[in-house]
């Protein structure tokens, strides 16, 4: 379903590289270079975003298979090819990536003033990697993008980060790399088994059950770190705290979704028996994540760390949803990922606004901002409510569907997984009260300025999306409904056939 053979996905993937080339060509003094780099990055990412809207318009939600498929022969003798395509699971993640990149560029406009050129290059490279990762249809290509994301992110944290940036970036790199090495082994094993790395073919391949368990654990090592699931989550708060605002936004908005996407693209459809077998373990870890990290969030004194922990809790809800293996649960997990992509990204921007002004993330240094920054208080309130999952905001739809989906599995899973509703309200409102409410007593806050027009422009699309996704979620869920149903049906069929095999072989004895 390629529009007149036009390689749209490749264009989206590689266009940011053109921007990189342009930025590299600029000569002149530092100020000129910086200014040029900013504008080039903004325009490139905006063009990519506008082009990606073609996906929004032309994607056929009723069709569960891959669309906009491109295929170029690469290493045919090994069954490896450069193949791109999107289905309902990935298309919205592509859009999320292309949307958040210009927002990040804009948010870093004044916040970054050292090595602006390199920063913008890193971001454009990051965009290429993200879009490529979500649209790759070949496992090797996917793996390259999946790992490629690490490099610019590592640099963004390590160069433009806070005081402990080196510790944080190395921790981030090592955690994710450890998982990835195991995934590469799984990839090789799959290739040996199936003779190809073509994802659609792998999706149709039946892997032996004994092998599935090992493959699942290998994938799990990689994706669980990315999500991140408890107890491999501690790299995230450190990375967030040290990363510059824009880095946090992409990290929370897109990079965490790579784990959930991986589960949904590889683990669940390719390894059905292992998925059923390991689901209880995932539920246990996720419930612990929801409750444990919510408690930890309550004790934080650093705003970014608090939101980072809340991300872990929210992603716990996602993994519960994905492994319920019913339509409501998976749709809920998908929706929660998209919503979290918007809301937590926005919350990091919200923190960034006052960090840029006061250069501290310490909650105790604030209080009473509502007085001086009414617009800021309003925007913050909307995202706080969306994070809590108030109906009418994007956060509610996913959470509710996950509760419904998990009740089909188990009552207690539903109740405990829903604990985030209470604890989330506690830590979010407690944060809001300490930062925005209260009497304005700190002298250095008296002169603080409300949102600038540039900041308004950054927040406006996110506010619209958070409410739109909450009030009319159908315009998003229609993209993935068919694909999710297909995954659920495929899984049920695979389990049913394996049960049949088991029962016939049992009868033979």
């Amino acid at each position: 379903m390629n529009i007149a053979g036009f390689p749209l996905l490749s264009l989206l993937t590689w266009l940011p590289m053109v921007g990189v080339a342009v930025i590299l060509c600029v000569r002149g003094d530092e100020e000129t270079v910086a200014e040029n780099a900013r504008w080039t990055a903004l325009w490139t990412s905006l063009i990519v975003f506008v082009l990606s809207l073609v996906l929004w318009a032309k994607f056929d939600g009723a069709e569960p298979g891959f669309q906009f498929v491109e295929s170029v022969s690469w290493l045919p003798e090994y069954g490896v090819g450069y193949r791109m395509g999107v289905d309902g699971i990935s298309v919205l993640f592509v859009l999320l990536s292309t949307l958040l990149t210009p927002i990040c560029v804009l948010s870093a406009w004044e916040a970054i003033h050292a090595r602006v050129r390199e920063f913008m290059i890193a971001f454009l490279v990051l965009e290429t990697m993200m879009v490529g990762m979500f649209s790759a249809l070949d496992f090797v290509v996917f793996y390259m993008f999946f790992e490629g994301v690490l490099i610019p992110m590592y640099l963004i944290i390590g160069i433009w980060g806070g005081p402990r940036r080196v510790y944080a970036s190395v921790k981030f790199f090592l955690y994710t790399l450890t998982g990835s090495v195991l995934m590469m082994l799984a990839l090789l094993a799959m290739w040996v088994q199936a003779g190809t790395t073509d994802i659609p073919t792998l999706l149709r391949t039946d892997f032996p059950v004994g092998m599935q368990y090992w493959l699942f654990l290998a994938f799990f090592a990689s994706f669980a770190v990315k999500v991140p699931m408890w107890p491999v989550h501690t790299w995230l708060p450190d990375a967030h705290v040290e990363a510059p605002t824009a880095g946090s936004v992409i990290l929370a908005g897109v990079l965490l979704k790579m784990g959930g996407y991986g589960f949904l693209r590889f683990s669940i459809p390719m390894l059905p028996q292992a998925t059923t077998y390991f689901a209880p373990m995932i539920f246990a870890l996720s419930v612990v994540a929801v409750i444990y990290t919510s408690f930890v969030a309550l004790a934080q004194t650093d705003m970014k760390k608090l939101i980072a922990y809340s991300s872990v809790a929210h992603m716990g809800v996602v993994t519960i949803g994905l492994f319920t293996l019913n339509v409501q649960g998976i749709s809920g997990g998908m929706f929660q990922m998209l919503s979290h992509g918007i809301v937590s990204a926005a919350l990091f921007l919200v923190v960034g606004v006052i960090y840029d002004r006061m250069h501290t993330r310490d909650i105790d240094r604030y209080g009473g901002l509502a007085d001086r920054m009414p617009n800021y208080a309003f925007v913050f309130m909307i995202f706080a409510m969306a994070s809590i999952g108030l109906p009418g905001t994007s956060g509610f739809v996913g959470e509710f569907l996950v509760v419904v989906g998990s009740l089909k599995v188990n009552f207690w899973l539903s109740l405990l997984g829903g604990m985030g509703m209470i604890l989330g309200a506690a830590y979010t409102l407690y944060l809001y009260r300490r930062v925005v409410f209260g009497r304005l007593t700190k002298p250095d806050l008296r002169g603080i300025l409300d949102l600038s027009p540039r900041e308004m422009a950054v927040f406006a699309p996110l506010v619209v999306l958070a409410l739109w996704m909450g009030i009319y979620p159908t315009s998003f869920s229609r993209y993935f409904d068919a694909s999710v149903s297909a995954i659920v049906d495929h899984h049920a069929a695979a389990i049913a056939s394996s049960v049949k095999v088991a029962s016939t072989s049992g009868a033979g004895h």
Partner: protein
Amino acid sequence: MMYAIAVFSPLVGCLIAGLLGRSIGGRAAQGVTIGFMILAAICGVTAFVENTWYDAEQETVPLLSWVVSSTLHADWALRHDTLSVTMVGMVTFIATLIHIYSVGYMAHDAYPVYRFFSYLSLFTFAMLMLVTADNLLQLFFGWEGVGLASYLLIGYWYDKPSACAAAIKAMIVNRIGDLAFVVGIALVFFTFGSIEFPAIFGAIEQHQNDLYGLFGTNFRAYEVIGVLLFIGAMGKSAQIGLHTWLPDAMEGPTPVSALIHAATMVTAGVFLMARMSPIMSYAPYALAFVAVIGGTTAFFAATIGCAQTDIKRVIAYSTCSQLGYMFVAAGVAAYQASIFHLFTHAFFKALLFLSAGSVIHAVSGEQDMRKMGGLWRHIPLTYTMFWVGSLALGGVFPFAGYYSKDAILEASYASGTLSGMYGFWCGLLGAFLTAFYSWRLIIMTFHGKPRADHHVMEHVHESPFVMTGPLILLAIGATVNGFVFRREFIGEGWPEFWRGAIVITANNHVLENMEHLPGWVGLAPTVAGLTGIALAYLAYMFVPSIPPAFARVFRPIYLLAYNKWYFDELYDFLFVRPTFWLARNLWQIGDATLIDGAPNGMAEIAAGSSRQVVKIQTGSIAVYAFVMLIGVVLLLGLYMLVR
């Protein structure tokens, strides 16, 4: 169409005032919100009147699809049946009066006033969405919407730490109930395959024997659903256990308290029980639970009300107690009586709160009744309003509360169930206490010698007409609503009035049996009420030494009531402190020490051992040659030995 206008015009008012308030100014924002509220009230009350006396068409208004996931459908729609219309009429009418009253009450407030009016309209809109929902999810939208609005309004004076704390408390306590509610909704979907009311109510017969396994046994699914939904209702309607937020909610401006306690928010739980009556009616054990909790709350909150000295706090506990009555009625499947009391209560409770606001306004913001007294000559109109409200609350003939409270007590007696009898006796005791604390409030506030200092007394003045006007309208409602609507709500006309909006089982004859009760049952509430009034006069007017003596002799009882049965202290000890303790320890010990210990330790070992290894590289060729020689000798020696 008219119905949609009634629901959405508060939203329009809210958005205009909220988003443009700063540019158009406070006055204009007030005008806009009140204009839209009046429009809503006209439409809402007309719809109610048409439905009550002109048998108007009942047609659901579809709006937009909302959450769709495979077989799960929930659409935005406005349900139009008697239950919804009654609530819409009542909510729009009372909320409009509260808006108008607020113009006077908030006139001297330091904050920009547009924010307040925007929130008030948001509150009204959320409540209207709740009562007109056609599925459980939209109901939950309104449910959380009123939660948000109450959070914003309770914390309206955001530089007051107590207000911020109360706002958060309201939200979190409510959320505890909400979690049960959401799981209940999920269970409804699990049982019925739908969360749309028409689909659920149409399939009641098929699923009534469905079982659901929990705690290792099988329960009837309806019982589990009933209990889960009721836990949700307990949070929103402040029933014992989840009630602690309501008395604190008076940290907000007084009109907000009136809105929370009368028209919106707390009545949502009672409404939910009536709305889900098709399921609840078939869940006898869940109903028994409802009645027991309701009865307990009715009594327990009334005892606290007798010992409080803050004028708003007394009325707040009275709300808690009155909600208990409504749940007693719901618990004996007399939903009609429960909604009837909700309806009459809305008027007299709004009246009482707004009158209390008028008193507070008169005495320069003082809320402690021990610093009032002797006010009745100065503010006679407010004094009269208090009498009307208290007569209605105390259930004195012919005021509205007489009809509705009597109906609840009679219904609970007539039900013949054990839980119903429990509700009856709790309610009867509660009626006595209600009358007692109401007149205790009147006497302490208005009679006796002035206890305020003379500066305050000099400034005591009757409120402006913009405040007293709404009071008079509410007083009329509190007086006549009982006998005007008795026949429709609970009398022989109820099937034509409710038109299927409330479903009871075929063998439920509670309303019929009410007519054939022993004579004393009908008289008992009135006797209890009059005794309470008499006792209040005796103790606070004629023999003022009684209360201190009582407090001395029965010190534990007095302290229990005065300290609100120690619920806040207990919860602080059981939940709040352990939560923060756990939070700190999970972070410092769990994350920082245990989980991060492994990778940091490994990094430490790697770095440490490489530091040790580095020492071998001395750079001295002699040492290297020596080590090499030893190595060669060792290898050769080994070789010899093995060979």
